């Protein structure tokens, strides 16, 4: 639609190498006026904003960071489709702004020359010119522009230098055409190496004529920093220190805001209960919706923190060094060096970890990393481990001084890591089979990150999580609520059925009848499901009550604790260190009067929780990040199967060895 008689709405694409300052320029041109989505059917991020060009305005499309347009990767394919106008709902761009880093001119211009070949007018935005000039180099922009045959504008996104000039130049360029300023060796297939040589030969001469290096000393500041940061010993030590800090942050600094959020939602639920009449509506809103929304938002502090760190590490250039340091180790199991950080983060929580796999370009490597990330023992498993160890292994020692609980805890972490590595090894040789991913990666110069870019990146991630994963999590949490809520048992039923449910334990003896919520859970669909799956989980040493807890804790692993509290009638507010809950578990008997829980059962349950997916938020985020229900369900399936198998081996093997 024309806004006035002369100018129509323009579409402008922003193309450039990774680390060329493209994102900073994009943010500076569009301000907060941007939206992020995915290109249809793929997980390549589609970023658009509105760029006001004086009288008129334009849709600015931020293409993925690229080194080339030859479509060997999905990003390159998408960028090519955008430039040629093949993507639905995106008009063919009127102008392409090619972002070129002045300090790395030749390699950056390679993509620019490829853009010339598409015929769409190109304007070169020269970034990092301040750094370039600080090194006492001189660049004749007029000459460079004449040599390249396209306008060149120096911009400094941080100082807003050249923004108006860039806008004016873009408007002047609309409707013009570009001539390819070199011979492409008479066409031939695009695979022809001759094209690459022709582009680089042209670039070398164009740059030689327009750039003067007055200071011939080489500037190797980044190399000097790297002499420490990628040093054979110090480099690894510093890396471990940085990873520990990140891990510590998401593991413990996030606890306070997470607790506050949890309390906040608890209080909100209480408030709503006071306000609404008692009944299904209040229950749905409080236990289904508010608890569900709370369950989503409680992950936000971890996600914000992790992405704060990742943005800073990425923008300073350190993340590339971390991948450089660790690639050898990771490539042994067929993973990319970049898989390390997502896996490390997954020890705190798999959700931000899986979101962090976006830094891995190759789809197969990325999927393999996503599929093993949930094996890292996350913080939500801790309450389960704590409860089991507290109930059955507390105070016991090995060799008289090593706490058995600590050993078991460590063993659970080790089990997760081992299984993850084995699974990665197998996946990379079977369904995700691919030659070892090439590791041809730029180690960008160290730079101060732009605060604005860091925060924008962090907020974008958080919003994406809430929007995409949130809806799935909310839906599942309402379904789980309904499973436990329906059918309603009548009050009489509550009073009349008690003996089998009551625990004959000292602490419970003061209570004559089961708590209504425990009785309700038993009669609910979830309770019936527990009975239904009992034959299946019997070989693991689990009875139907544990079955109900397994079903309920699919919402989130820590829900196991509150569900066991409800089902054993100790009230749902008991935590994993509660003595009441611990003794209720120890004394629980099954329908035949046999003791349900033995140390072996507890160990089996822990093994199950190491390997089973048991987290709807992870399922939701995997669906979002792989954009595929097939892969998501495959993950749920194989993890559950693996958990069952390992638990079976643990329980039956333990029994054969004479453990109880």
């Amino acid at each position: 639609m024309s806004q006035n008689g002369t100018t129509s709405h323009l579409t402008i694409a922003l193309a450039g190498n990774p680390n060329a300052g493209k994102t900073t320029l994009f943010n500076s041109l569009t301000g907060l006026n941007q939206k992020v989505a995915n290109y249809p059917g793929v997980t390549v991020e589609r970023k658009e904003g509105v760029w006001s060009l004086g009288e008129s305005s334009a849709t600015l499309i931020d293409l993925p960071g690229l080194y080339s347009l030859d479509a060997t990767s999905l990003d390159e394919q998408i960028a090519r489709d955008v430039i040629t106008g093949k993507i639905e709902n995106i008009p063919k761009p009127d102008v392409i702004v090619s972002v070129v880093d002045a300090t790395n001119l030749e390699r950056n211009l390679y993509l620019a020359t490829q853009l010339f070949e598409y015929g769409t007018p190109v304007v070169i935005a020269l970034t990092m010119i301040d750094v370039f000039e600080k090194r006492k180099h001189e660049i004749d922009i007029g000459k460079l522009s004449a040599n390249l045959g396209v306008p060149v504008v120096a911009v400094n996104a941080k100082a807003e230098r050249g923004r108006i000039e860039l806008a004016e130049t873009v408007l002047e360029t609309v409707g013009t055409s570009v001539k390819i300023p070199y011979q492409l060796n008479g066409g031939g297939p695009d695979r022809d190496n001759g094209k690459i040589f022709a582009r680089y030969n042209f670039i070398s001469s164009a740059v030689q004529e327009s750039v003067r290096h007055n200071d011939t000393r080489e500037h190797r500041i980044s190399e000097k920093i790297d002499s420490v940061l990628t040093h054979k010993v110090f480099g690894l030590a510093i890396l471990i220190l940085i990873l520990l800090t990140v891990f510590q942050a998401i593991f413990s600094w996030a606890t306070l805001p997470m607790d506050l959020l949890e309390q906040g939602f608890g209080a909100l639920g209480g408030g709503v209960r006071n306000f609404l009449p008692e009944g299904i509506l209040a229950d749905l809103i409080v236990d289904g919706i508010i608890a569900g929304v709370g369950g989503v938002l409680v992950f936000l502090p971890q996600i914000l923190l992790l992405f704060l760190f990742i943005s800073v590490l990425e923008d300073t250039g350190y993340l590339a060094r971390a991948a450089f340091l660790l690639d050898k180790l990771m490539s042994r199991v067929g993973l990319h060096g970049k898989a390390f950080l997502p896996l490390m983060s997954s020890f705190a929580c798999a959700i931000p970890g899986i979101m962090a796999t976006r830094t891995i370009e190759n789809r197969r490597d990325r999927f393999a990393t996503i599929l093993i990330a949930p094996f890292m023992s996350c913080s939500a498993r801790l309450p389960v481990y704590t409860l089991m160890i507290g109930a059955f292994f507390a105070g016991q020692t090995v060799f008289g001084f090593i706490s058995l609980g600590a050993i078991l805890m460590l063993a659970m972490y080790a089990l997760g890591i081992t299984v993850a590595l084995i699974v990665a090894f197998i996946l990379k040789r079977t369904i995700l089979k691919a030659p070892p991913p090439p590791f041809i990666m730029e180690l960008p110069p160290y730079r101060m990150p732009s605060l604005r870019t860091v925060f924008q990146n962090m907020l974008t991630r958080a919003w994406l999580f809430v929007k995409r994963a949130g809806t799935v999590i909310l839906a599942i949490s309402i379904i789980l609520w309904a499973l436990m809520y329906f059918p309603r048992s009548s009050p009489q039923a509550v009073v009349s059925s008690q003996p089998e449910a009551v625990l004959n334990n000292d602490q419970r003896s003061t209570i004559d009848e089961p708590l209504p919520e425990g009785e309700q859970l038993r009669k609910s669909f979830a309770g019936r499901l527990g009975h239904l799956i009992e034959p299946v989980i019997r070989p693991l040493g689990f009875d139907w009550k544990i079955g109900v807890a397994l079903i309920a804790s699919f919402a989130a692993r820590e829900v196991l604790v509150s569900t066991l509290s409800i089902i054993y009638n100790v009230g749902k507010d008991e935590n994993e260190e509660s003595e009441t809950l611990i003794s209720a578990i120890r004394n629980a008997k099954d329908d035949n009067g046999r003791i349900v829980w033995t140390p072996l059962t507890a160990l089996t349950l822990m093994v199950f929780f190491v390997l089973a997916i048991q987290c709807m938020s992870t399922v939701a985020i995997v669906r979002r990040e792989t954009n595929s229900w097939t892969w998501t369900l495959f993950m749920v399936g194989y993890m559950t199967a693996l958990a069952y198998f390992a638990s079976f081996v643990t329980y039956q093997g333990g029994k054969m060895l004479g453990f109880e």
Partner: protein
Amino acid sequence: MTLADLPKGESRTVLSVLGENVVTRRLMEMGLVPGVAVRMIKSAPFGDPLEINVRGYSLALRRNEAESVVLEKVAPNE
């Protein structure tokens, strides 16, 4: 001699890039074309990958990828 054998700190000119596949193509797109000078910066702690300087920037690549880049026998004149 290939790029994988280049000692730390030394420079050479690229003679050719062997093979025609996704990896060699990407190497050339990153600026490793015949005639360009490369300098070895270092190898990672476990001996792999390598870090080189080409066209004024740092590029990391694995040893087996560097093996397809053939270098001139003598160092370029400084």
